[in-house]
């Protein structure tokens, strides 16, 4: 179980665009937990705090009761946290197989790597030896990113807007990836998303606005209000 206790984050480098978080407390122990909210509300900041990419200015993060607030990205990864980037990183020279192998933490066979790629809808044989570089489209990179999290198979997986850029590949497939992943890991999957269809599979939805948790509950409790209150941000003052 992941627990955030009174976590705050304020940008210290004077970057006014950085999202802030203010006294956020929440737990993640269910199968699927979704975090949603308007753009700029602090959702991605939250995901980065959990992965250890940034540190909270206040508060504590606990994993299975252990305080991991001061642990590095590497240490948290080794304790069983996976994190899928919203914008996957490109590498000149590293192949898809290299990356999936590094994710699995061991040398994997071609057929193992192919299995992970097939799960995210990529024809493995066409991709396995390709470099994870600019020749891949955003959608391809995004699916490879998801495959790296699959290969890790950790107890907690965090996805930052996994649906963004998943061109030509249906949400239903993405959802079945999450379902299969849970069958294997029996852990929790934390998904940051705007997509109603992804929110629909959540056992718990956390709504964040202006850096604060404004609502937590089951989809039956949260979704109706959320959808009724959804206004085009451009029309908001």
């Amino acid at each position, binding site marked *: 179980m992941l627990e955030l206790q009174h976590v705050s984050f304020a940008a210290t480098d004077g970057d006014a665009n950085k999202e802030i978080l203010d006294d956020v407390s929440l737990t993640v122990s269910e199968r699927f937990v979704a975090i949603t909210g308007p753009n700029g509300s602090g959702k991605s900041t939250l995901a980065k705090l959990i992965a250890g990419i940034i540190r909270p200015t206040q508060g504590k993060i606990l994993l299975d009761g252990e305080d991991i607030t001061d642990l590095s*990205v590497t240490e948290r990864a080794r304790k069983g946290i996976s*994190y899928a*980037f919203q914008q996957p*990183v490109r*590498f*000149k*020279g590293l192949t898809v197989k290299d990356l999936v192998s590094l994710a699995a933490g061991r040398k994997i066979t071609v057929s193992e790597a192919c299995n992970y790629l097939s799960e995210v809808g990529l024809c493995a044989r066409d991709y396995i030896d390709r470099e994870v570089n600019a020749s891949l489209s955003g959608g391809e990179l995004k699916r490879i990113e998801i495959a790296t999290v699959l290969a890790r198979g950790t107890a907690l997986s965090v996805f930052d807007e996994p649906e963004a850029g998943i061109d030509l590949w249906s949400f239903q497939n993405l959802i079945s990836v999450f379902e299969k992943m849970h069958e294997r890991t029996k852990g929790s999957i934390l998904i940051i998303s705007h997509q109603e269809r992804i929110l629909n599979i959540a056992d718990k939805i956390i709504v964040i606005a202006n850096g604060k948790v404004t609502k937590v509950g089951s989809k039956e409790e949260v979704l109706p209000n959320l959808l009724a209150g959804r206004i085009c941000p451009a029309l908001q003052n």
Partner: protein
Amino acid sequence: MDELEKMLLMQIADLHKVPDGAYNIRKNGEADGRRSTPHIRIEARKDGKAGIDIFISKETQGESVHIPVVITQTDYRETVYNDFYVEDGADVLIIAGCGIHNCGQATSEHSGIHTFHVGKNAKVRYVEKHYAAGDGNGENVMNPTTDIRLDEGARLEMETTQIKGIDSTARTTRARLAANAELVIREKIYTHGRQYAKTDFSVTLDGDGAGADVVSRSVAAQSSRQEFYLRIDGNGKCHGHSECDAIIMDDAQVVAIPALAANNVDAELIHEAAIGKIAGEQLLKLMTLGLTEQEAEEQIIKGFLS
């Protein structure tokens, strides 16, 4: 051959034993074995200079020639001239390379000057590896010069790698291409410590349909220095592409000075260059997979130079 020499041969030519096909092994300035085959003839030079002439007949199809150089003496310097005569239509793999193991205090130096005369429609793959080691304080110096002349429709692919132990190197490659000839160069360099590496490519595309693709990837770590010079001259309806991509670390310095000269309105020449440190995001991604920062760095460099 002793264990040290065997180790050097393995590093530069992946040789565990005497190679199949034609070969010439040069050890501390002396011939340590030579074999010609019905299609590939290796002879001592007739002009008095050190080195060999290699004649590759047009009957040669898919054969290989190994010409490794091994130096295990300290305070030893040599300049060796090897000329390759590849007949029209031949198809050959040439594996050269130099390994130095310098345990002494003085400098060991090898300057290899390779000239390729490649006939019409012939295909050459030329693999060159440089490696040095030693437990003394002596410097290891290698200055390879490659002179390539491609006749009409000829193709030469050159892979040149310098991964370890060379303290100072000046690598000069010149090529002149006739119509429809094709040149592909892949260079990989890793420098560390106080090493210095200079690369100088000069490619002249004389004929219509000639094409060159030169890609250099390098990593400069610690206090090492690298200089990259490149010039492509397009004198006809030709296409030239070059790319130099360098990762810089610690206190290293990299200079890249590319030049393109179009002397014909139909010459298409492109250069791409990038020098930068390893992107923080790349390190972070690999750290979220459980690697330490150091391990992430090693993987990124390994991939970049593979």
